[in-house]
C-alpha cells in the first residue's frame, strides 16, 4: 500500500541505521526547511504593521500541491512510489474518469499503525529520511514528506492501512486537507489510498486538466515507466472498471520490457550490461531499425527511480551512432545502479531530475554499454540489425501516377482517380500507397512501420510476423551477398538496381560507398596517407580556427595532416589516400564548423567520428555519378566487406528491397 511518504518505520532501518527504529520525534525531518519555523505560523499578531506572514499549513500544502500534484498522473506516481517503498509485491491502481473522479492505489506492503497514519498526512512527515546525511543518501523513491499532505489538500482523501503486526487497521478520511474522520477498521495488510475528486477545491487547476483519454494516457505512461523498473512487482491498472494493463511479477526484465514496449520489440532487444566500478548500467535497448520519432519510449532509471536526464539520453543516443537516422530514436529501458551518495535526487519536487556527481563517467559508461550491446547483438544474430536496413522511414516508392482506368483508354486526371472511392473499397491498402517494403527475409518483422509510427494500424502481415521471425532459417548472410546480386543497371545515376531472384534490390550508391569509406577510415591505424606536393591552404573563421586546433593531432591519426599557417589559415600537408583527389578545403572547414556546432558537449571521440563521417561523405561516390559495370561490381564487393553494410554512417539505409510479391500486388496480378 502506498506507504505514505510519511511513515515507514520499517524501512528506515535500511536508510539510516543510526536512527532509532521507532520514535516519532524523528519523523519530522530536518530536511530542506527547519521545522521550528513551522511551529508558530499563527503566532504573529495580526497588526497592520506586518505584511509578511507564515502561511497556514493548509495553504502551503495547496501550494506544494501545485509542484507535486500537477495532474492525476503525478498523484499516481507518488502513490505507487510510496507503495514500492513499502516493499509491496502487488500494486493495483484503479482509475475512474481519467483520474478526475477517482484514483485508488492498493498495495500489500508493510502498512502503517494508526499513529503513523495520522502523522503521514502532516507536511514533511516521512519515514524515509531522518537526518541531513540521509538526504544525500536516498534509497527510497520518496523522501520529501510532501506527497500525502499535498494530495490530501486538493482532494477527498481516504487512507486505509493495516501494519503487518497489527490486528486491526485504521481509516482516515480527509477533505481539502482537513481530517474529517478517523476510525478503526478491518483491512488486509498494506495500504489503500483513494483520491477522489482531485482538485475539487482548486478550480483553476481543474480547468487545466485535459480530456479523460489524455490524462489516462499519462497515467498509463507513468505506470509503464515504473513497471519497467520493478519487474518483480505485479501491476494492474484499470480504468472505469476495465483492465488496461496487467503485468504479472516476473524475475526476467526482458519479459516485462516486451510486455510494456509491445510485441514489436520482441526479438529485437539487445541486453545492456556494463559495470564501471560501483556503477552498473543494465537494461535493454531496441535494434536500430525499431525506432520512434520521439524519445518518449526511452526509459531511464537511476537506482530504480524514473528520471528524465538529457545527459544520459544524449550519451545513449551517441552509443547508437552511426546507426540511427536523424530524427529517429530507439526504444530503451536502462537502469543505472550506483552508490546512493553519487547522485542527488533532490533537484525537483517531482523527483524526475537528478544530478550526478560525475556525469561524464556515467555518460561514457552508458555510451559504451549501448555500443557494446548493439555490436554484440549484431554479431550474435544476423537478424538483429545486420541484415536489413530500416525500410520505409520515408515512403521511398511513389508509384507513377497510373490511372486505374488507363487500360480502358480513358486518360483522366490521374490524381483525381486515386481518391475515387468505389473501386478502391475492395482493397483498403490502396494500390497507390507506397509499396510495402519487405525486409530482406520475408519472414522477418516487416518494418514498413516507420512512417506510421505507433498509431499505424496493424496489417495482417504485422500480426503474423513476430511468430514467423524465429523460424527464419535462411537468414540473410551479408558476406558475399551483394556481390552475388545480378546488376540490372543504374537509375538516375544514383541508384543501383539489382535482381535478388525473389525481389528487387535498390542500392543508394552514395550511401553505400559512404559506408564503405567510413569503415575503411574507421579501421584507421594502417590507413595510408598521401603527402601533398602542393599543400592546400584553408581559411577559417576565428571560432572554427579554435575548434580545429584542438583536434589537429587527432586528425593525423586519420591520415589528415593539417598545420596552422598563421592567423586563421591552415595548410593541408597530407590526406588519407582513400579520399579522391578532391579539394580538402571544404572538408576541413566542415569539420571545423561541426566541431563548433557541437561545442564542448560532445566528447572528442564523437566529434572525431563526425569527422570520419564527413570524410567518408567527401570521399564517396556522389549521387548522379555514372558508374561503369565494373565500378558497380566493385562497390558491391566492398559492401560485402563492411561490418554493417546496411546503413550509411548517417544512419540512412543503403539499400531497400521490393519483393516480387509486393510488386505483383502493386500490379494487381
Amino acid at each position, binding site marked *: 500500500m502506498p506507504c505514505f511518504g510519511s511513515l515507514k518505520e520499517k524501512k528506515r532501518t535500511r536508510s539510516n541505521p543510526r536512527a532509532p527504529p521507532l520514535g516519532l520525534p524523528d519523523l519530522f525531518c530536518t530536511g530542506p526547511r527547519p521545522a521550528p519555523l513551522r511551529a508558530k505560523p499563527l503566532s504573529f499578531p495580526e497588526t497592520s504593521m506586518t505584511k509578511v506572514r507564515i502561511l497556514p499549513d493548509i495553504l502551503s500544502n495547496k501550494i506544494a500541491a501545485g509542484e507535486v500534484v500537477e495532474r492525476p498522473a503525478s498523484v499516481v506516481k507518488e502513490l505507487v512510489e510510496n507503495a514500492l517503498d513499502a516493499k509491496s509485491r502487488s500494486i493495483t491502481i484503479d482509475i475512474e474518469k481519467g483520474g478526475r473522479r477517482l484514483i485508488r492505489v492498493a498495495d500489500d506492503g508493510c502498512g502503517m499503525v494508526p499513529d503513523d497514519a495520522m502523522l503521514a498526512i502532516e507536511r514533511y512527515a516521512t519515514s524515509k529520511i531522518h537526518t541531513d546525511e540521509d538526504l544525500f543518501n536516498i534509497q527510497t523513491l520518496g523522501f520529501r514528506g510532501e506527497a500525502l499532505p499535498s494530495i490530501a489538500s486538493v482532494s477527498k482523501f481516504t487512507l486505509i492501512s493495516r501494519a503487518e503486526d497489527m490486528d486491526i487497521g485504521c481509516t482516515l478520511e480527509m477533505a481539502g486537507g482537513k481530517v474529517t474522520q478517523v476510525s478503526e477498521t478491518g483491512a488486509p495488510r498494506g495500504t489503500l489510498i483513494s483520491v477522489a475528486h482531485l482538485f475539487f477545491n482548486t478550480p483553476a487547476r481543474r480547468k487545466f486538466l485535459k480530456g479523460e483519454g489524455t490524462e489516462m494516457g499519462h497515467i498509463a505512461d507513468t505506470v509503464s515507466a515504473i513497471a519497467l523498473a520493478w519487474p518483480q512487482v505485479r501491476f494492474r491498472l484499470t480504468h472505469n472498471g476495465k483492465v488496461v494493463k496487467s503485468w504479472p511479477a516476473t524475475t526476467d526484465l526482458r519479459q516485462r520490457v516486451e510486455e510494456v514496449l509491445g510485441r514489436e520489440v520482441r526479438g529485437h532487444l539487445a541486453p545492456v550490461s556494463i559495470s564501471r566500478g560501483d556503477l552498473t548500467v543494465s537494461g535493454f535497448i531496441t535494434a536500430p531499425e525499431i525506432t520512434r520519432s520521439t524519445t518518449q519510449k526511452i526509459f531511464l532509471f537511476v537506482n530504480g527511480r524514473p528520471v528524465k536526464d538529457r545527459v544520459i539520453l544524449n550519451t545513449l543516443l551517441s552509443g547508437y551512432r552511426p546507426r540511427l537516422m536523424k530524427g529517429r530514436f530507439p526504444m530503451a529501458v536502462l537502469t543505472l545502479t550506483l552508490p546512493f551518495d553519487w547522485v542527488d535526487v533532490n533537484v525537483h519536487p517531482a523527483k524526475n531530475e537528478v544530478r550526478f556527481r560525475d556525469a561524464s563517467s556515467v555518460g561514457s559508461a552508458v555510451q559504451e554499454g549501448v555500443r557494446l550491446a548493439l555490436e554484440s547483438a549484431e554479431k550474435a544474430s544476423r537478424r538483429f540489425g545486420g541484415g536489413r536496413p530500416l525500410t520505409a522511414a520515408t515512403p521511398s516508392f511513389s508509384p507513377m501516377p497510373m490511372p486505374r482506368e488507363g487500360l480502358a483508354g480513358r486518360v483522366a486526371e490521374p490524381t483525381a482517380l486515386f481518391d475515387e472511392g468505389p473501386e478502391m473499397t475492395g482493397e483498403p491498402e490502396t494500390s497507390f500507397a507506397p509499396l510495402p517494403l519487405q525486409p530482406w527475409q520475408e519472414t522477418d518483422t516487416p518494418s514498413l512501420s516507420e512512417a506510421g509510427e505507433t498509431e499505424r494500424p496493424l496489417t495482417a502481415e504485422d500480426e503474423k510476423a513476430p511468430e514467423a521471425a524465429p523460424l527464419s532459417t535462411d537468414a540473410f548472410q551479408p558476406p558475399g551477398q551483394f556481390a552475388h546480386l545480378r546488376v540490372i543497371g543504374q537509375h538516375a545515376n544514383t541508384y543501383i538496381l539489382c535482381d535478388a531472384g525473389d525481389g528487387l534490390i535498390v542500392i543508394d550508391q552514395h550511401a553505400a560507398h559512404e559506408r564503405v*569509406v567510413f569503415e*575503411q*577510415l574507421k*579501421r584507421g591505424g*594502417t*590507413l*595510408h*596517407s*598521401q*603527402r*601533398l*606536393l*602542393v599543400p*592546400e591552404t584553408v581559411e577559417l573563421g576565428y571560432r572554427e580556427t579554435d575548434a580545429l586546433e584542438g583536434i589537429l593531432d587527432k586528425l593525423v591519426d586519420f*591520415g589528415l*595532416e593539417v598545420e596552422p599557417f598563421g592567423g586563421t589559415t591552415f595548410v593541408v600537408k*597530407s590526406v588519407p*589516400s*582513400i579520399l*579522391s*583527389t*578532391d*579539394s580538402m578545403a571544404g572538408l576541413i572547414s566542415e569539420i571545423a564548423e561541426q566541431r563548433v556546432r557541437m561545442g564542448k558537449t560532445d566528447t572528442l571521440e564523437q566529434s572525431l567520428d563526425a569527422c570520419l563521417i564527413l570524410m567518408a561523405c567527401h570521399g564517396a561516390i*556522389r549521387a548522379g*555519378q555514372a558508374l561503369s559495370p565494373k565500378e558497380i561490381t566493385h562497390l558491391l564487393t*566492398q559492401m560485402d*566487406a563492411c561490418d554493417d553494410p546496411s546503413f550509411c554512417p548517417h544512419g540512412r539505409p543503403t539499400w531497400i528491397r521490393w519483393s516480387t510479391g509486393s510488386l505483383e500486388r502493386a500490379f494487381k496480378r
Partner: protein
Amino acid sequence: MKFKISKKDISTILGRVQGITGRKSNLAITANVLIKGEGQGISFVATDLETGFEGHYAADVEREGAITINAKKLFEIVQNFPGEEVLIEEIERQWIEIKNNNIVYHIVGMSPDDFPDVPRVDEVTFTRVATGNVREMIEKTVMIQAPSDEKRAHITGVCFERIQQADSQLMRMVSTDGRRLCKVDVEIGQEDNFVPGESVIVPKKGLMEAAKILDKEEFVEVGVKDNYLIFKMEKETVIIGLLEGDFPEYEQVIEKDDAFDIEVDRKLFSMMLKRMSILSSDSYNSVIFNFAANRLEVTATNPDLGESKEDMAIAFERDEVEVAFNPKYLIDTLNVINDERILVNLRDNHHPCLVEGVDEKRFLSIIMPMKI
C-alpha cells in the same frame, strides 16, 4: 543548303567533334554541329562554350547555306551509311534530308542563328611546332586527370609556358593533382617564330580535344591571345578558353640534387611495381621501398588480403632509405618515359621524388611519398 561529301571524310570530321558536342553545356544547341556551305567548301563548327572546333573541307556544294544538326545522330547515320557519298540537304527550314540512292533520313535541325559564336581571334602570333611534339606534351600532362567535380584551376588545367632561355627556347606544360606533378618541355627551333609570354592555365578537357586533331599534318601553329589558346592547322582550328587562377610555383620542386639519383631499369622497375600493386586497394594503396646497400626491397601489405615482397639489385651506396609510394603514380610515370634506363631522385620520406629518363630530359615527373 545542299552538298555532297565523301562518307569517309564526314565520318572523320564528326568523330573529332564528338568529344566537344558530347559535353553538357547550358545550351542545348551545343550538342549540334554547325555546317556551313560556302563556295567550294564546307565548314564544321562545334563548341562546348569552352573549347571550339572549326574545320574547313572541300566538298561539292550545290547550294550555299548553314544548318545545325545533332552531331551524335549524324555521326551514327553516316558511319553506317551504305555507299561512298553522302548527300545532305536542307529541304525545308531546319528539316534536313540525308540520303544516297535508296536510303533517306529526315532530321530536325536547329536554327544556325542560335548557334553560339566561336570566338574569332585575330592577329595572333603563332609559333610553329611539330604536331607530334605537341600531342606528346598534351598526352603526358593530361594523364594526371582532375576529378569530375574539381574546381581549382591548377588541377583542372595544365600550366602552359613559353620560356626564353639563354641558348634555347621552349614550350612547357606542367600538370598536377596536388600529389604529383609532371612537366614536359618541347624545344622550339630558331626559325619557328617563337614568342615568349606569360604562363597560362589551359583546361585539360580542351587539351584532350585538341590532341584529337593533332594527327594529320606535320606542324601545328600554337598561339595565345585574349584568354585563348589556339591550335591552328591548315584545315582545322581548336580554340580553348583559358582558366583564371594561379599555378603553384613548381620551380623549386623540380630542382634536383643529383647526389640522390638512383638509376634503375625502367621495365624491370615497372613490372615489379605492377606485381606489388596487385595487393593494393582503395584503402591500402602504398608500397614501401627500402633502399639499402645495392639492394632495393619492396613490400606491399594489405590487411584485407595479405602481403608481398620482392627485391632487386640496384646501384645504391647511401644510408638506408625507407619511403612509401602509391604504386599507381609510379606506374603512370614509367609508362610515359621513353628511355629504358631511368633516374629516380629520392632523398627521403618527406621530400618529393623526381623521376626522369637517363638521357631524355624533356619529361620529368614528381611524386610525393606517402606517410609511413
